C-alpha cells in the first residue's frame, strides 16, 4: 500500500469518486492498545464508507515523529490523521496538561468524568487554533506506585527513589519528600535490580512488560494521573469529505471511544491480576491516604492553574463540583 498523499492522484477504482487515502500516525508499537484502537477505527471507517475512506495506520513512529510536535504536524497536514499523547502536546497547547494534573482524579470513573467535561473545550481549541478535529479520545490505564516496601501513607513515600516519566510525576515525588529519577524505560529494570531506584510510578501494562515481579513486591493503585491520547484529523482534509462521510467518521469515533474506555478499564484489571499471580501484592490506598495525597499536591495543581489558560479553571471547577470535592 501507498501512504500519504501519494496515491491521491492514482486512479484504478471503478467507483464514481476516487477513494480518499489517508495515513494515520501512531508513535506506539503495533501491539499497543492505542495502535490497535486506531487500526480498528480505520477498519470500521473503511467498512462504513464502503472503501471511500481508506486509512493506513503507521505505527512505531515509522514516519519519524516523536510526539511533542504532533499538534503542529496535523495542523500543517504533514499527516492527515494522528494519535497524540494529550499531555505530550501540552508544550504547544498548555490546556492539554490538565489531563495529567496529579491527584485531580481518584479513580478511572472520575477520569472519564474529567474527560467528558474537558471535551468541548478541547474540541474548540483543536479546531480554532490548531486546524484539526478530534475524532476520539482514548485513555491509558492510570499510574500507581510500584515499590519494594509496602506504602500505605504519605509518610511511607518519604525517601523513596522513584522513577517518574513526566514533569508532574516528578513534582509529586518532590512534594511527598522522595527523589524522582526521570530514567528512560529501558533502564528501569536494571536500576531497580542494582538499587539505583526502589520504586516506579507507572501503569499496569508497563509493569507487565518490565516483569516488575522479579524486582518489586507491592502495587498501590493510587491514580496519580490518567493519561489520554487525542486522535485528530486535519480540518482541511476533513472538510473535503462530503457531509455524509464526515458524519460516518464522527459516529465511528464515538463508537471507538466508548469501546476503548471499556477495554482499557478491563485491560487494567487483567494486567493487575497478572502481576498478582506473579507475586505482586496490591495494596489499595485508604481514602485517608488518597485525601492526604490530594492535599499535599494541591500546590502543584494551583500553581499550574495560575499560569494556565482561563478555561482550565472552568474545567477543574466543574469537575470538582461534579465529584463533590472542595
Amino acid at each position, binding site marked *: *500500500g501507498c501512504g500519504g498523499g501519494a496515491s491521491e492522484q492514482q486512479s484504478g477504482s471503478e467507483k464514481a469518486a476516487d477513494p480518499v487515502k489517508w495515513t494515520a500516525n501512531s508513535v506506539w508499537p503495533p501491539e499497543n492498545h492505542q495502535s490497535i484502537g486506531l487500526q480498528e477505527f480505520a477498519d470500521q471507517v473503511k467498512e462504513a464508507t464502503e472503501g471511500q475512506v481508506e486509512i*493506513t495506520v503507521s505505527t512505531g513512529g515509522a514516519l*519519524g515523529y*516523536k510526539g511533542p510536535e504532533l499538534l503542529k504536524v496535523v495542523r500543517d497536514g504533514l499527516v492527515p490523521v494522528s494519535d497524540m499523547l494529550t499531555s505530550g502536546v501540552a508544550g504547544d497547547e498548555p490546556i492539554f496538561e490538565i489531563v495529567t494534573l496529579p491527584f485531580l482524579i481518584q479513580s478511572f470513573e472520575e477520569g472519564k468524568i474529567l474527560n467528558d467535561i474537558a471535551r468541548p473545550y478541547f474540541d474548540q481549541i483543536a479546531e480554532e487554533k490548531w486546524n484539526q478535529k478530534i475524532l476520539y479520545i482514548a485513555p491509558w490505564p492510570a499510574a500507581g506506585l510500584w515499590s519494594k516496601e509496602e506504602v500505605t501513607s504519605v509518610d511511607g513515600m518519604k525517601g523513596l527513589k522513584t522513577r517518574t516519566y513526566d514533569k508532574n510525576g516528578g513534582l509529586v515525588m518532590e512534594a511527598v519528600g522522595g527523589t524522582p529519577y526521570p530514567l528512560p524505560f529501558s533502564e528501569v529494570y536494571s*536500576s531497580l535490580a*542494582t538499587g539505583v531506584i526502589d520504586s516506579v510510578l507507572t501503569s499496569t501494562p508497563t509493569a507487565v512488560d518490565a516483569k516488575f515481579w522479579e524486582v518489586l513486591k507491592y502495587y498501590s493503585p493510587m491514580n496519580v494521573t490518567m493519561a489520554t491520547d487525542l486522535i485528530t484529523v486535519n480540518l482541511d482534509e476533513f472538510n473535503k469529505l462530503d457531509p455524509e462521510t464526515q458524519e460516518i467518521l464522527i459516529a465511528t469515533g464515538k463508537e471507538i471511544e466508548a469501546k476503548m474506555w471499556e477495554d482499557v478499564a478491563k485491560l487494567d484489571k487483567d494486567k493487575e491480576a497478572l502481576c498478582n499471580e506473579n507475586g505482586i501484592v496490591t495494596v489499595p490506598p485508604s481514602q485517608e491516604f488518597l485525601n492526604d495525597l490530594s492535599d499535599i499536591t494541591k500546590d502543584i495543581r494551583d500553581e499550574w492553574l495560575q499560569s494556565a489558560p482561563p478555561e482550565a479553571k472552568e474545567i477543574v471547577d466543574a469537575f470538582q463540583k461534579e465529584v463533590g470535592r472542595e
Partner: protein
Amino acid sequence: MDLFIISFTLLGLLILLLGSSIWVGITLFLVGITGFMMFTSTQPLTILSNILWNSTNSSTMMALPLFIFMGEILFRSKISENLFKGLSPWLNSLPGRLIHVNIAASALFAAVSGSSAATTATVGKITLPELQKRNYDSSLCLGSLAGAGTLGFLIPPSLVMLVYGIMSGVSIGKLFIAGIIPGAMLATGFSLYVMIRSLFNPGLAPAGDLRYTWRDRLRTIPQLLPVITLILMVLGSIYTGWATPTEAAAVGVLGAIFFALISRSMDGKVFMEAVLGSVKTSCMIMLIVAGASFLSVAVGYLGIPASLTQFIGTLGLSKYELIIILSVMYVIMGFMLDGFSMIVMSLPLALPLITAAGFDPLWFGIYLVIMIEVSQITPPVGFNLFVINGLVDENIFKIALYALPSFIIMFIIVALLTLYPQIVLTLPNMMLR
C-alpha cells in the same frame, strides 16, 4: 507496478548523485526531497525540519562524540607503544610470533575505541615499523593488520552499533555485549590463520634474537593495566546496568584523559586537537544519520518497505537464501561505500525484511557490523586500506589482496553465526535488562 518505477528512479538518482561526488549526507536529503516532490502531494520541507530536530535532539547520540573523543585521546597517547611492549613477550613464542601482536593489540584497543580506522591507525603506527625492522613477511603483516583492525567496530564500544541501535531501536547496551564473542572468534580466526601459514613457512616470521622469560612477561603487566582498567570500566558499567552507553562513554573519556596525563602525552594542544577531531567526525556521521532518517521517512511515506517485504515474501526464499542475497548486496555496496552510509541507506528496507524472515534485530546488528568490517578491507573504498596506505605507502589494491584471507575468515564466521545465532544472543540475554 509503479512502486518499482518509483524505487528505481530514487535508486538511480542516489547512484547518480553519489557518483558525481556529492557528499553522502546531502545526497540522502536530495533523494528524499525528490521522492516527496515527484511522488506524493505532501510538502517535504516542514517534515525535513522535524526530522532534523528529532534525529539530532537525542541524549543517546551524545555517546557518539564522547566515544570518538576517547579514541582521539588514546590515539595521541602512548597506548600503542605500551600495547606493543606489553604483548610482545607473551606472543613471541607462538608460530607467527609478533604478527600476533597486530591481532591482540587490535582486539584490546578495539575494546576502548569505537572505530576500525582508529584501531588500525593506532596499532599499525607502532607494529608495522617494528615488524618491518625484524624482516617479517609484509603480506602477512599488512593483511593481518587490515583484518584485525576491523575489530574496532565489532568489539564494543562501537560507533556503527550506536548508529544501528538508534536507527533500529535495538538496545545499544545489548548490541555492545553481543559483539564480544563474535569479536573474540574473529580474532582467534585471524590468529589461527597466521599460525597455520607460519607453521608451513617459518621464514614468514623470523625468530631473530628476541628471547623473553617469564620475568619479562610479568614485568609487562603494568603496561597493559591502563587499557585493561579502561575496558573493565566501560564494558563493566554497561554490562551491570550501572551506566547507560552515554554515561559509560563519559567515564571512558575521563579514564582516557587520566591515562594520557600519567603517560605524559597530554597537553593543551593535544587536547584541543582531540576535541576538534571528535567534533568533526561526529558531525560527519550525524549529517549522514539525519539524511538517512529523512530518506527513510520518505520511502516510508511512499510505502516502499511494506511493498518490498511483501514482494520478497512472494518469492518464498528461505532464511538462509535471504542472508546470502543480502550478503552479496552488502559486499557490492561495500566496495564503494563507507560503513555508516551502508547501514543507514540499507536499514529502512533491510530491517523489515529480516524481521519478517524471523531474524532477531539484535542478531542482524552484529551481522551488519561484520558486513561493514568486510567493506573496510575491500577496494577501492576501504578505510582500513586507506589507513595502512598512509602508514606504509603500499598500493591499496595490493593491501586488499593481502587482506583476502581475513575477508574469507569473516565469511566463515558469518556462516557460523547464521547457523548458530545463539553465539550472538546468549551473552546479551544473560545481562541485566
